[in-house]
């Protein structure tokens, strides 16, 4: 192999040995919602620092979180909806007993491009927009411009809760609706498209999009907590059975003072 080959081999071995030092025995695997993602990641960072427990977080959607929990490939499924009946059946057949632990409350903010003069919509109007009955902003008191409807993918818990709260569970969304794969992608698309309307978790909204009042109520921590904002929902850390040990400590973070502060700082709403 020559000197070069030997050098490479030695360096390679050295690097591998250097990596092989740390070893974490006790770890928590979290999979699921992109909406709960920021919360799960921040909790994970805080928890790792405090209790020295390694935590990995994947954001692949509530549906995938549920699947992972049912297949026992994660300890906590972070979900922005509760389990569907068919998921519960699947869980039961595999001997998994999903337990919902509320992580925080979240408002589903309806957002439009900041240039849109529309300030408020009723749930009926939003439903009609997503069913395709209303297709121009003029019909809801805005400028004469077509509405670009943006929805989430079928795997998304946010999509499920939106359909349940606004459109109706079994009612199909208009075929013209554009599908985006995450809260961030919806925000990005709406902030760049003048006629767009979309929905995302309250914690993800910023100045690049305009939040709209629903039935005359603006989404904010106060209206979400007291329930006057119509599109509120809990976010869950779903565990298999009653949590124990460090998983229990983790899902009870939202009840601690530090956990509450993290939730507030991220723009979510405390349940406890």
């Amino acid at each position, binding site marked *: 192999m*020559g000197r*070069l*080959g030997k050098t*490479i081999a030695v360096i390679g071995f050295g690097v*591998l*040995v250097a*990596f*092989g*030092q*740390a*070893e*974490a025995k006790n770890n928590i*695997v979290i*999979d699921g919602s992109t909406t709960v*993602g*920021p919360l799960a*990641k*921040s909790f*994970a*960072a*805080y928890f*790792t620092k405090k209790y020295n427990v*390694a935590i*990995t*977080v*994947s*954001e*692949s959607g509530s549906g995938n979180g549920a699947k*992972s929990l049912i*297949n*026992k*490939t*994660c300890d906590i499924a972070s979900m922005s909806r509760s389990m569907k009946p068919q998921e519960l059946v699947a869980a039961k057949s595999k001997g998994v007993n999903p337990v919902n632990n509320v992580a925080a409350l979240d408002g589903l903010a309806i957002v439009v*491009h*900041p*240039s*849109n*003069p*529309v*300030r408020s919509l009723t749930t009926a109007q939003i439903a009609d927009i997503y069913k395709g009955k209303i297709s121009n902003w003029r019909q809801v*008191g*805005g*400028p*004469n*411009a077509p509405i670009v409807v943006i929805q989430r993918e079928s795997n998304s818990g946010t999509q499920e809760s939106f359909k349940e709260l606004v459109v109706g569970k079994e009612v199909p969304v208009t075929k013209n609706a554009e599908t985006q*794969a*995450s*809260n*961030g*992608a919806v925000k990005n698309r709406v902030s760049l498209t*003048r006629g767009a309307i979309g929905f995302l978790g309250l*914690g993800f909204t910023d*100045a*690049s999009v*305009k939040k709209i009042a629903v039935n005359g109520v603006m989404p904010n921590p106060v209206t979400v907590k007291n329930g006057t904002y119509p599109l509120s929902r809990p976010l869950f850390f779903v565990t298999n059975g009653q949590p124990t040990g460090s998983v229990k400590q983790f899902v009870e973070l939202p009840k601690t003072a*530090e956990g509450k*502060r*993290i939730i507030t*700082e*991220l723009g979510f709403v405390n349940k406890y």
Partner: protein
Amino acid sequence: MNLGTRKLLDQSFTALGIGSIVIMGMMLLVVLVPILTNGISANVFKGTIEHRRMQYNEFHRGDRDALQREISEAAATRKTAYDMMSTFEAELNQMDEVKQAEYRDKYNQVKDAVKSLLGPKPGDELPELTRFRYGQTRWEKAQERLREVLYEKKWDYSNPDIAAKEYLVSRAESFQGTSLVKLFPYVETNIDRMLLPKWTIYWGFIFDSSIDSHIFGGIWPEIQGTMFLAIGAMLFAFPLGVIAAIYFTEYAREGFFNSLLRSANSTLAGVPSIVFGLFGLAFFINTLKVSESKSVIAGSLTLAIMILPTIIRSAEEAILAVPKTYREASLGLGSTKWNTIVTVILPAALPGILTGGVISLGRAAGETAPIIFTAAVSVGSAIGLADVFNSPTPALSWNIYNLASEHEAASEIRHVQYGMVLALVTIVLLLNLTAIILRARISKKLKG
């Protein structure tokens, strides 16, 4: 065809060739220059005092005394601004209700903008999240924030029939007649004394773990995860691929079964990578249960299957390219078939086999889809070698996608995303370079 036409055709072909090379070069520049400049800006940038404070607090880096001096220097300038704000707060409390309601909201915006620029006010309760504990660590971001302190972005909704236009309102004007009006010119002129920007080379971007989901810190867990996955894939795929290629070229008899195998191999090379990802989840994790959940080993196996066809093909071509005379000479001297393969054919084919291998290694490092369901997570710490059997890992390709689309503060940390892109491109480039050097050295040795 007469000579004139031939010459003309020849020349026009040359021109076409040069033209396409120039276009290709330009495309490469268009792609590489932004990657390079933006990627380097993750390592080399104008860092503010907040960056140095963060480095000291989170990574214990930097000279404590010098930092203390700088902090008190900046704090002296900042104090004037904070004093102006408290004067205004007192004034605000004296106002009548109507005016108070008018100013309270606007003042809260100013307060938030200043907090985002300089970090929490001394004496305030420290936020739980690291991202809110510091002001702007990068000078160009600080200047963006400064504009938010000075101007308010508003939309003109006066005519509901047309889309509103955006306009900026100077905050100094909207606070005309109050004591706060002095704050804005003061902050604008003294911003560099409040933040003390300095050119900084931050190597930690490569060797640190990320803090508060990539808002601060570096990308080491991602780089390490990428290397683990790619090297792991190679450990499985390379020996298997070379053995398969030897079988195809030396042992297999031409026939229906053999050509079926070959075309199956070629088809496998054209299967979209996401299919391999789902296959990996269904087969390695759910059926074989190589690990309880996502893990490096499951990801490596999936990647190995993805690159296997390429390795087989290139190894096959390399073995076929070995001159027949080598084989005949070896067999003529009484060597066995196996001995010929090991001592004569494989060494001669090694440069070609290695090239194929290293190109596949680069592909394994850059693929996202196969690892989404089998190995990659958005955040996680750097893992040790013993953890590859049960721990998932962050990896460059997946985290670039994550930062581009899903991260809640994606637009704030574009530099991290570019830094990751540059790191990935560099890793692949280095691998290819190694292939070229190895190949050159081995060929030289074979000739000599």
